[in-house]
């Protein structure tokens, strides 16, 4: 067996095992009782990894975008062309945005039971509180929707690759303050540095960490897995299009 395929099978089975573990123990484990959270604290094993995967995938997308811009340096001999790297960047961003949606939805379910439990389910405010972190997460979602819209407004793929890469890097530079710095500076409901004493207690607790860290790694591996499948499909599609275009050109 080749080394690459061994690594590939290894991390995929590790992802399956860790996620199964998270699912079983995350839902059945005995948790230390927290008055404000109660059983909803279990969402911590799913909601927080969702956002971590988003950061990891957007980070991958950022790296691919940087490589796109680097590939325009004529002195460098690179294995992949800029358009192939562009496919990888956009696929990472697509998987990232799926985890962004998952994070928003799992956050809404959590908000329903902790912040909006006194409201009826038909009331939108029961699900959405316009807390700074929630708002900023929604804005992050819009920023990446803007990335996909930007990509559709170019006819020339080379130019699209270059400008989209530049926007992606610019977007990442605003994504990090948006998710980690700005919400903590504004008054809100999410546990932040000042208000998070209960969260810190829970983190230190051993029964909590034994599920949380495997969940983190499991979700990151799952995100990478989906990304790998998607970008390989994207590259195949790109080559098929190229062959098609070449044949059409030869016929003319």
């Amino acid at each position: 067996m080749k080394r690459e395929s061994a690594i590939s099978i290894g991390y995929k089975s590790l992802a399956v095992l860790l996620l199964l573990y998270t699912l079983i123990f995350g839902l059945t484990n005995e948790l230390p009782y927290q008055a404000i959270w109660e059983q909803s604290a279990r969402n911590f094993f799913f909601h927080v990894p969702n956002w971590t995967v988003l950061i990891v995938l957007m980070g991958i997308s950022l790296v691919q975008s940087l490589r796109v811009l680097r590939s325009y340096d004529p002195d460098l001999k690179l294995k992949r062309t800029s358009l192939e790297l562009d496919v990888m960047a956009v696929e990472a961003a697509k998987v990232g945005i799926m985890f962004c949606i998952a994070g928003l939805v799992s956050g809404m379910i959590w908000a329903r039971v902790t912040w909006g439990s006194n409201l009826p389910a038909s009331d939108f405010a029961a699900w959405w509180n316009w807390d700074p972190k929630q708002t900023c997460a929604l804005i992050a979602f819009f920023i990446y929707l803007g990335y996909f819209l930007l990509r559709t407004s170019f006819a020339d793929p080379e130019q699209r690759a270059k400008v989209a890469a530049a926007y992606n890097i610019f977007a990442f530079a605003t994504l990090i303050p948006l998710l980690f710095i700005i919400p903590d500076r504004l008054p809100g409901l999410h546990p932040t540095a000042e208000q998070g004493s209960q969260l810190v207690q829970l983190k230190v607790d051993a029964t909590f960490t034994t599920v949380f860290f495997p969940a983190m790694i499991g979700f990151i591996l799952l995100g990478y897995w989906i990304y790998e499948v998607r970008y390989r499909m994207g590259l195949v599609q790109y080559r098929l299009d190229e062959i098609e275009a070449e044949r059409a050109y030869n016929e003319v």
Partner: protein
Amino acid sequence: MLQTIRHLLYKEFLLEWKQKYAFNGLLLYVLSMVVVISLAFIGKWQKPIWIIMYWLLMLFIAINAVAKSFLNERQGQHLYTYTLASPQAVFLAKLIYNFLLLSVMGTLSLWAFAFLAGMDMVSPGWMSLTVILGALVISANLTMVTAIAARAENRNTLLAVLSFPLIVPVLLILIDLSRFAVEGRASGINTATAYDQVYLLLGLGTILTGVSLILFPFVWRE
């Protein structure tokens, strides 16, 4: 480099001076908006509404004013500029020009709000500082986004769609800081937090400008 930036800035001001309608149009826009807002809120005037209206007005001015910077240039003209100057110089000149334009517009609309809408502030100094910082970060953000949108086909839609999400977080902090300037301690924000916000805005402005300076050469080149 500095020489080039100075020449480019001079060109921008000369253009502005020659086509006074753009600047005057913005002024008229500010005035009519302030009048409409004052009429709409007669008797129900509250400080938070005032702040939010002010920053919404600033947002629309910013998009209108900054949109001109790259979108209105004809294809040949920008090629000509780029053969003469380095892309960094072009970008910095645009950025400084946008910053000055936005600061002037922000200050003028602040006066318009203060005199026409009869708004009082606890600390006008803090409010002016907030306006200048806002002009800095918003222009740093918008200059790059317009440069990107100018390359694409549906420029105007794209400019709005790309710039709003990038500016809203900055607006959140600016609104928070203006609440401190307008309401003072009643806003629940103390001076230390306000300074924190100022540093955060300065940091954001620096990061965005730095990233833009690195990326801009890739964006303009065909």
